[in-house]
């Protein structure tokens, strides 16, 4: 069963074995507003947690997307480069950013589960 974890930088990570899919949360896309540009990492790149992994730009501003866990990029979602509005319309579906092959899947325990993330976001409002 895949599990979904969340970072304090408002990324979600869907973990299935040693594979992880990464995107930004619905809260994050709401804060950004209309997304107009996405830059994704090259496939094959090695990431450490906290590395600048992607760029997401709304009409208002540019933001970094950080690698939530260590791993190698195995796929990047070209569909959001062609149509960045997918990040707004389906942030946790078609609007995913990239997939990682995790260096150590157990590290995911350091991220928040859904209830903890919800409490975290409520604390920001």
């Amino acid at each position, binding site marked *: 069963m895949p599990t979904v974890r969340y970072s304090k930088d408002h990324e979600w990570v869907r973990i299935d074995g040693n594979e992880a899919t990464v995107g930004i949360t619905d809260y994050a896309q709401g804060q950004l507003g*209309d997304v107009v*540009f996405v830059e994704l990492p090259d496939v094959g790149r090695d990431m450490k947690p906290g590395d600048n992994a992607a760029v997401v730009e709304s*009409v*208002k501003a540019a933001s970094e997307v950080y690698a939530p866990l260590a791993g190698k990029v195995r796929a990047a979602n070209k569909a959001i480069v062609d149509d960045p509005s997918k990040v707004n319309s389906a942030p946790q579906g078609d609007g995913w950013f990239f997939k990682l092959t995790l260096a150590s899947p157990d590290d995911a325990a350091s991220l928040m589960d859904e209830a903890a993330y919800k409490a975290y976001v409520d604390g920001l409002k």
Partner: protein
Amino acid sequence: MTQSPESELQKTPLDRLHRKLGAKMVAFAGYDMPVQYLGIMAEHRHTRQAAGLFDVSHMGQAQLHGANAVRALETLVPADIKELGVGRMRYTVLTDHKGGILDDLMVTVGADHLHIVVNASRKAADFAHIASHTEGGCRIEVLSNRALLALQGPAAVEVLARFAPPVRHLAFMSAETLTVSDIPCLVSRSGYTGEDGFEISVPADAAEALAETLLAEPEVKPIGLGARDTLRLEAGLCLYGSDIDTTTTPVEAGLAWTIGKRRRTDGGFPGAARILAELATGPRRRRVGLLPEGKAPARAHTPITTSFGATVGEVTSGGFGPSLDRPIAMGYVDAAHAAPGTALQLVVRGKPLPATVTKLPFVPRRYIKK
């Protein structure tokens, strides 16, 4: 712009209405202001297609009274105010002794005074500056009890005429004291979007009622500061603090058109020596429009280089133009690289991206000139 903790932020007379409408509020120039209601893109497009209502009450409004008001103001700005008839308005700049820009402002000639509107972030400094130059038959009265609404877009005239029929006959850059839905207002045909539209100076205690009246019309939606910025960028209009400031002159900024013919001969405004010299021989650098290739927006402070990598300037405003569905930017470049069509590069996150110098505005202005 000044950023203050939320508790210290000033609120406009429409604060309660913004919250009722579900606005996302941000700190801007010391005020708690709506940045968006539904979304910048939708608000921007709505303003270009129908009509948008903006709260710009944070801006500073004042009147200059006295027989010497025109003469006093002309010692501070390069515009010809003297030639303006009653009811006419002019865009101008307060300059410093080096020819830099202290602020940009609108001046309207009233029957017995001048009405001025300045930027929120500069109003305290501007009013003190003007007050210190108004000795002898001139005095400044700050209008802190007035709100300012802007109704902008192709449907603005039809909407406003329902409540103030004479606005149909108001020419671009002119103003009249009118009752709008029985509220006494100073209405000007002007704005900051490139569209036809009006700015309405209204007593603070009547502002919410007026805003509700206008928002009840089917063509009108509330528009936040986010779309105000994308609209003015597409229209090629300067934002004080970004595109113009004390380090830029009116000639560099492409605002030479604001300098009156008589003032070019007689001078008599701060920084005239430099500004008139630049008019004669051309400025060292110029504000230009830039069209980046590809989809990546180039924000303020992005370096501008030649195709060989030599730095020739910097972006001062940049982002995404919703009406053009592409990134757009403005910035200053050395005069030798300022001609439309010049190929340059914008260095975004360390990567040089091709861009082309282009004529401003990006989107044709649709002012109704009579």
